[in-house]
């Protein structure tokens, strides 16, 4: 277009073209010897910092499942412990009911997370000891069956059917419910610990106690919130909060690069807040007040912390998979 269409432009002339050429040449000169500006890979660096590993694809259901599985599994163990030591019937019933509620919710959450939910039964095609996911599917099936039978038998004995057969079934179902419940609360730590994910596999020995501490405190807290403000649930709350505090300090002091997802970013902050809620805060609230409202507050703090820490572990796995240098460092050391 002519200059009339663009009043700001100078009129084209031979002088103007010379000016343009000179300006371009001046600008280009320093670039001739400039270092390359595009990304380069040096030394033992990763491929442009791109992730080596794939991040877990698990959605929100899985972390919630870890939490509910822990609470309900441990509830079955509490019910059996109470039965063994002559605990009150109402508490045993409530604990079994919590366990059964979890046994109903857990499969729903797991199936919802599948890429092909309609194929959930394929989980029971094989029994693979070397796959914690396969073991978990079988544990969950066994747990659901045990706590269902246990609760039915328990109700029958309470309603005038306390014949030896029913009592025998109740004991057997409660015992196996407790055993499978403990496995349910524990195996999820193995599930993420025995993977190729750096922050998970590096902490494979510390994650199971962390999950179990949350399960003990969580199942006790649920019973407290239902109304069982007994010395037993108080003791469970104390022990779990102390365990969470100790583990929180341990994870905070583990400053290796592989653990940076536990200290930095979204997962780091979630992990810290979760640990503080379930550890020192729940402990302090319990120490400061043993009133009903104080214990309920402590129970809620613990449950929120325990739930958040499951999400924090998943998020930490996502962050860890995106850090190739931490992976390389841990492999070079080994």
């Amino acid at each position, binding site marked *: 277009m002519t200059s009339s269409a663009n009043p700001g432009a100078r009129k084209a002339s031979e002088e103007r073209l010379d000016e343009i050429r000179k300006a371009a040449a001046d600008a280009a000169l320093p670039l001739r010897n400039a270092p390359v500006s595009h990304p380069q890979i040096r030394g033992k660096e990763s491929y442009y910092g791109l992730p080596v590993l794939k991040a877990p694809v698990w959605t929100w259901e899985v972390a919630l499942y870890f939490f509910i599985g822990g609470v309900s599994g441990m509830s079955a163990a509490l019910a059996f412990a109470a039965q063994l030591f002559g605990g009150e019937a109402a508490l045993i019933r409530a604990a079994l009911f919590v366990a059964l509620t979890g046994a109903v919710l857990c499969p729903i959450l797991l199936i919802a997370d599948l890429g092909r939910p309609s194929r959930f039964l394929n989980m029971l095609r094989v029994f693979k000891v070397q796959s914690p996911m396969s073991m978990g599917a079988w544990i969950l099936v066994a747990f659901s069956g045990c706590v269902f039978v246990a609760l039915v038998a328990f109700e029958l004995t309470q309603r005038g059917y306390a014949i030896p057969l029913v009592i025998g079934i109740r004991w057997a179902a409660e015992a196996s419910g407790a055993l499978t419940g403990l496995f349910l609360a524990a195996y999820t730590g193995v599930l993420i610990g025995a993977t190729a994910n750096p922050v998970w596999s590096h902490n494979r020995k510390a994650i199971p106690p962390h999950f179990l501490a949350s399960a003990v405190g969580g199942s006790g807290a649920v019973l407290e919130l239902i109304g069982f403000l007994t010395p037993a649930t108080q*003791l469970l709350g104390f022990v779990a909060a102390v365990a969470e505090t100790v583990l929180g300090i341990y994870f905070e002091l583990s400053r290796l690069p592989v653990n940076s997802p536990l200290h930095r970013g979204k997962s780091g902050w979630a992990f810290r807040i979760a640990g503080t809620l379930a550890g020192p805060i729940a402990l302090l609230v319990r120490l400061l007040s043993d009133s009903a409202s104080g214990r309920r507050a402590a129970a809620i703090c613990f449950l929120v912390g325990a739930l958040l820490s499951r999400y924090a572990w998943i998020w930490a796995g996502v962050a860890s998979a995106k850090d190739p240098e931490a992976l390389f460092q841990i492999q070079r050391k080994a």
Partner: protein
Amino acid sequence: MTISAFLTDATVCIGCKACEVACKEWNEVPADGFVWSGLSYDNTQSLGASTWRHVMFLEQPQTAGPQIADTKDPFRWVFLSDVCKHCANAGCLEACPTGSIVRTDIGSVLVQKDVCNGCGYCIVSCPFGVIDRRPVDGRAFKCTFCYDRQKAGLIPACAKACPTQSIQFGNLEELQERGNNRVHELRERGYEDARLYNPLETSVGGVHAMFVILGEPENYNLPPAPEVPTIYLKSAWTSALLSAAIAFVIACVAFAH
């Protein structure tokens, strides 16, 4: 049983991406988005559910290499076509809870797509970050080693399409030897950082897709010491069972009071 293998040689790859195209077309792998990465000519970036061959483009400040662009400012351009390693001890296979992932008669690791329910556990169990879940579809996918073609007596599509024989296909022992000879030859010719990537000394126990590379494995996002996650089972389960026992003792103590 002969074990099929790939030997992919970075020193003769020209970065044409014919392998990527051939793989996509033969296996009817869907498109998975297109981005300008700004990382050399690599707009594929990584292997994934819908990328079973991935050509890497390494720009490095080195002088010994096949594509040397500038000798004054040290610079070389190396290409390598990455693929599923078909590990001797495969993390994905061990982890799969449905039995969908199997070891085939040619020694490869195959996902049976009519069985996979998309649980996602193989994804966190692969030490190479190869297998992934395909969004929308929901199942896990990775390189099939063109099992269908091999059963019909054909070589994998990527190897067939490769114009420089950078992707070589054959049986494992023969290609291992060929790889070692190639590295020896390259070193004699001055490529001092040439090496064969095949993690035989780790728990993975070697791979059926080996690579002749220049420089460090890390530069190609190849883990220097990949481990199959099953080696972590013993310590993790021990910790889990101990913790569970302690938790039950605590419960008993609480109710015994």
